[in-house]
C-alpha cells in the first residue's frame, strides 16, 4: 500500500501524560513520528498536537481512531497536505566573518524571505518560515557557501482549509450529552 505524509491533529485536555498516551499508539505499530508540535489551542484549557507521519491511509485511520478513543482526547483527525495550510520555522546560525566575506547577502534575504534575528561579531542567526523543502533549500545554500554552525527546524503547524470547524462542532455536540 502506498505511503504518504499525513498530518494528524489532536485536541486534548491539558493533563499530565497526554503526550505519552498519544506516542505509545505510534510506538506499538512502529511508526516513526516525523514532526511533532504541541501548544495551547485557541480555546482555553485545550491543547493541540500536530503530528506528521509517513504511513498508509489504512494505518493512519486506525491510529487516529485509537488516539480519539483515549478518555482525555477531545478530537483526533488526519489530513493530507492538500487539505491544509501548513508551515514550519527554521533557525540557522552562521559565522559572521564568513558571511561578511561573501560581500552581500541581499539576494538571500530577498530570495528566501528570511529575517535576521541576531547579529554580533561572532555569529548571525537567520530565521526562515516555510514548507520543509523551502527551509531545507536555504539550509543547503548556507551549508555550501558559509557553513551552518547550528540549525533547528520546528515541527509542522497546520490549519485545515475545511469550512467545517471540527472542534467547535464537537464541543457543541458534547453539550447535548452533558445535558442529557
Amino acid at each position, binding site marked *: 500500500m502506498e505511503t504518504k505524509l499525513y498530518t494528524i491533529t489532536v485536541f*486534548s*485536555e491539558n493533563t*499530565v*501524560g497526554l503526550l*505519552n*498516551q498519544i506516542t*505509545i499508539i505510534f510506538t*506499538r505499530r512502529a511508526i516513526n513520528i516525523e514532526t511533532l508540535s504541541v501548544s495551547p489551542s485557541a480555546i482555553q484549557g485545550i491543547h493541540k498536537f500536530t503530528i506528521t507521519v509517513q504511513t498508509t491511509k489504512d494505518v493512519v*485511520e*486506525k491510529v487516529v*481512531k*485509537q488516539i*480519539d*478513543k483515549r*478518555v*482525555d*482526547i*477531545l*478530537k483526533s483527525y488526519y489530513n493530507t497536505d492538500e487539505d491544509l495550510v501548513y508551515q514550519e520555522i527554521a533557525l540557522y546560525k552562521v559565522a559572521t566573518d564568513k558571511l561578511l566575506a561573501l560581500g552581500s547577502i541581499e539576494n538571500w534575504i530577498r530570495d528566501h524571505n528570511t529575517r535576521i534575528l541576531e547579529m554580533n561579531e561572532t555569529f548571525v542567526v537567520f530565521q526562515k518560515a516555510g514548507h520543509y523543502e523551502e527551509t531545507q533549500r536555504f539550509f543547503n545554500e548556507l551549508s555550501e557557501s558559509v557553513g551552518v554552525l547550528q540549525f533547528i527546524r520546528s515541527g509542522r503547524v497546520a490549519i485545515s482549509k475545511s469550512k467545517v470547524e471540527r472542534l467547535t462542532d464537537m*464541543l457543541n455536540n*458534547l453539550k447535548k*450529552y*452533558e445535558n442529557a
Partner: protein
Amino acid sequence: MKITGAKAIIESLINEGVDTIFGYPGGAIMPTFDALYDYDKKINHILTRHEQGATHAAQGYARVSGKVGVCLVTSGPAATNAVTGIADAMLDSTPMIVITGQVGAPLLGTDAFQEIDVVGISQPITKWAYQIRKAEDIPWAFARAFYIARSGRPGPVVLDIAKNAQIQEFEYEYTPCNFIRGYIPEPEIDQDLIQEAAALINSAKKPFALVGQGVVLGNAEVELKEFLEKADIPAAWTLLGASAIPTDFRLNKGFLGMHGNVSPNMKTNECDVLIAIGMRFDDRVTGDLNTYAKQAKIIHLDIDASEFNKNVKVDVPLLGNSKETLPALMAQIQPAKHTEWIDSFAEYDKQEYNKVILHEVYPEEGELTMGEVIHKVSEATQNKSVAVTDVGQNQMMAARYTNYTQTRSLITSGGLGTMGFGLPAAIGAKAGAPERTVVTYCGDGGFQMTIQELGTIMQENMGVKMVVLNNHFLGMVRQWQEMFFDERYSFTKMKNPDFVAIAKAYGIDGTEVSARENLDAAIADMLKDDKPYLLVVNVEMKGMVYPMIPAGTSVTNIILGE
C-alpha cells in the same frame, strides 16, 4: 468534616457501591489499610497471596457480577505484579480499578524505595491511569475512575496515590461522575445505518451472527435472543461470548475460532450476511483475514468505534451499546425463516461429533480425557456452574464442553491468555456470585503459576471447586510441538508435586483420580457441599484439542484429528 485521604479512599469506594475488594498491604498503602481497619462491616477485604492474584480475583468478580472489581495494593513491586491482571482486563474489557500506593509526592522521581512510574507503565494497558498527589483530588479521581471503568467499553483504571495524599486531611465531599468532555461512552444510534443494516438482513438468504462479549457487557442477552429469533438467524459465539446464549438454544451453532466447532467456522465462509455483535474479529476467530468471509456483506455492532475496520473491512458499522442497537435493528427487520440454511449446519456438526466429540467426551476405554471430565462436571452441576478456566487445553476444552444455561458462566483470559488466571479468578467469581457453584479448570502448569492462592481460599474458606486436569505436560504447547515442531517436546514435560497433599496442607479436601470408574464418585464428593475442594484428574498425557485451525490459515482449514 475533615477526614484523611485514606478514609476518603474508602468512603469513595462505598459511595460507588463497593462492598468487596481484593488486596495486599505494604509500605506506601499502609495509611489506607489502616483506615480500612475501621470498615470491616462495610467492606469485605480479601487478602490474596500475591498482587497478581488480587487483580485476577477482581477480574473474576467483575466478570461474574458485572460490577467493578477493585484491587488495593502498594507501590513498586506490588504495582508491577498487578500489571499482568491490568493488561488482561484491558484486552478482555473488564471493569476494574487498581489502587496502588505511591511514595510521597516530595520523593517522586527520586528512585525512592519502592518507587516506580506506575502511570507510565500502565498507560498502554489501561483505559485511564492517574496519579493522585494531594488528598483533595481523591473524590474527583475516584468518581471519574468508576465512570470510566464501567461505562462504554469497560476496562481497567489505575489510581496511583502518593502516601502524603493518604495522610492529608481535607473537606470530603463526593459527587459521582456522569460526564467527561471528549468521552462519549454511549453514542447516539445512527438510524440511517440501522436502515442499511436492516435492508441487508431482510434480503439475506444465509444470515449468520457472531456473538461476542459485548452482548454480555451490555446485558443484552434477551435482546439478542429476540433478534435472532425474529429473523431466524443462526449464531455462534467467541470465547468471551460463551454463555451469552444457552447451549440448547435452537439457533446456537456453537463456538467460533481456532478450537471452535466445525459448522460455524465453515459457515462463516458460506453466509451471505455476517452480523458481528460486540466482538472484535480477533485473529483466533478469523484466522487468515485474506480468506475470511469474503463472500459476505458484514454488519458490525460495537460500542468502540476503533474496532470498525480494524481487522475486517465492514460494510455497515453500527456504533452503540448492543442493548440499544439490537432492538433498533430488530424494529426494522422482517420476520423470516431460514430453515434450509440452518439445517445445513447439521452435516458439519455430525462430522465433528463422530470424529472428535465422541472420543473426547464419551470414551469407553483408554485413559481419562479432559473433555469427559468437563462434560461430567458441567452435568453434575445441572449445567449451572460458573466455569473459570486457566489457559491452554483446559481452557479450550472447558469452553467447548461446558453446557451453558445462564449468562456469565465462562470466565477465562481470552485476549491476553494469562496462565495462572484460573485459580485467583475463581476466588473472585465465588466472591461475586456466592450462590453459584464455581468450578475452575486448570492444567498442571497454570495451576502452579498461582498455586499460592490456595492460602486465600483457606483463609476465606471460599467454596471454590478446583479441577486440575493433569497431563504432566504444558499441554497446548506440547500439542503445537507435536503438530508443528516435529514432536520435539522442548521443556514441556512436567514433574509435578502431590497436589492433593499440597491442598491438604492448606486444609483443603481433595482427591486424585486416574480411573474412569472412580470419576463420577469423585465429582460427587467434590460437589457434596459448599467447601473448597481439589479434584486432580490424571488425564491422557498426549491429548489433543480438536478441531484445530492452524494459526494464520483459513477458517475452513480445519483439522479434525490424525
